[in-house]
């Protein structure tokens, strides 16, 4: 059951993303002001949504489940790690697509808009988590450290969010937010937009599961390895 679901998830996610791209690139009309650039709207917001909300929430919840003694299991540790790893990819893609979009619309690659700034900050937090994960340690030790780190970071997200929003609005810079897009959206565009959110969320989940499976595969091999390792270790004592 779980297996078939996972098997299905991959093709479905990929197909939906493909459909989204086709609709976005060829079917929907170009924007009056932005021309073909508007097609980024079918990628970028969905990427951002996945990176910031889905990935962070998943990492936070899995970490919490890990820390809770009753539900503690390495599964959650691995899931959290996979979520962050894939989340970093999505965050970077958000920054890249955003910058590509920003260059023609705002005339600059980057502006100190609240959303952009908090995205960048959260990206660095993700990187910190990965740096911590690379520190050599016992798997359980690492799992606990990383779970705590993810939880602290997750708690910080709303605080960062509000402080950055206030920070920006108090000192209004020359930002053109995307309000000029809203009126131009017509039916098909709205559906494509909605589709993009669903498609990228599914894609994310699928990638996380694949990443998770690779790690568990390692782990499964480890079980077999462990038996060998135990045997080899016991032999060390035998007089040479």
């Amino acid at each position, binding site marked *: 059951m779980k297996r078939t679901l996972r098997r299905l998830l991959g093709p479905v996610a990929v197909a939906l993303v493909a459909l989204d791209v086709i609709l976005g690139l060829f079917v929907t009309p170009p924007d009056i002001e932005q021309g073909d650039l508007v097609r980024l709207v079918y990628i970028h917001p969905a990427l951002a949504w996945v990176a910031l909300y889905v990935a962070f929430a998943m990492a936070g919840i899995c970490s919490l489940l890990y820390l809770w003694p009753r539900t503690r299991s390495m599964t959650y540790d691995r899931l959290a790690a996979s979520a962050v790893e894939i989340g970093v990819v999505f965050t970077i893609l958000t920054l890249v697509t955003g910058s590509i979009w920003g260059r023609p619309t705002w005339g600059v690659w980057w502006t100190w808009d609240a959303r952009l700034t908090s995205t960048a900050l959260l990206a660095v937090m993700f990187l910190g988590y990965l740096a911590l994960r690379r520190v050599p340690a016992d798997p359980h030790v690492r799992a606990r450290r990383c779970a705590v780190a993810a939880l602290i970071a997750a708690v910080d997200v709303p605080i960062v969010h509000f402080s950055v929003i206030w920070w920006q609005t108090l000192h209004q810079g020359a930002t053109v937010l995307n309000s000029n897009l809203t009126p131009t959206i017509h039916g098909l565009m709205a559906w494509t937009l909605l589709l993009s959110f669903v498609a990228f969320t599914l894609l994310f989940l699928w990638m996380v599961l694949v990443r998770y499976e690779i790690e568990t595969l390692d782990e499964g091999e480890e079980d077999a390895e462990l038996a060998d390792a135990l045997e080899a270790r*016991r032999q*060390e004592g035998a007089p040479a």
Partner: protein
Amino acid sequence: MAPAVHLSNAVVLAGRFPVLAGVDLELDAGQVLVVLGHNGAGKTSLLRLLAGLVPLTSGEGRILEHRLDDQARHVRRRVGMLGHDVGLYDDLTPHENLRFALRAARVDPGAGPGALERCGISGRVAMTPLGALSAGQRRRVGLALLCARRPELWLLDEPHASLDTATRQLVGELVEEAALGGATVVATSHEPEVAVPMADVVATMAGGIVIETTSGGRPRGGKDVA
């Protein structure tokens, strides 16, 4: 009465390497165990497991009525360990170190100076920051902490190393005293001549398991109490 230390098929991993590969062990309160074995046999790892400092990967472990897998914190409170490195604060003097450690362990800090004196740390040396002391003096301070704290399970990693002849004898005395007082002692050693006479049980480790258990040279007086 349940045994003070019970391990069955205990496996401990460091990274992916099994430092303990299935250890079985059983000790009663008041017994002294000496662990022998080649370098890398897993003696230090065994002590660290008994102290609740490393998680048990598989197998079973009970120390002083607490399970090692989920009650390690309770185990740690009742255990005293003298490792290869004593782990006290280099910036504090032996006196201050003992004072802090004893208060942290909720023991009367008044026992500190006496214990230091007994382990040969007095006068100038007791007032010098630990970082400046010689290797043997540091180990003496570690020993003094155990002696003042009187834990229920003593874990001694090569207790004789670096100590001079006079203090070596003291180790034997302290161990005997602890055992008579009902505490369990586990000590590793590379010097069977000095270590075996103080043991009830001698375990030989190799390759992460206990390969042989024999009885040690401790006079029967010890056994009776247990």
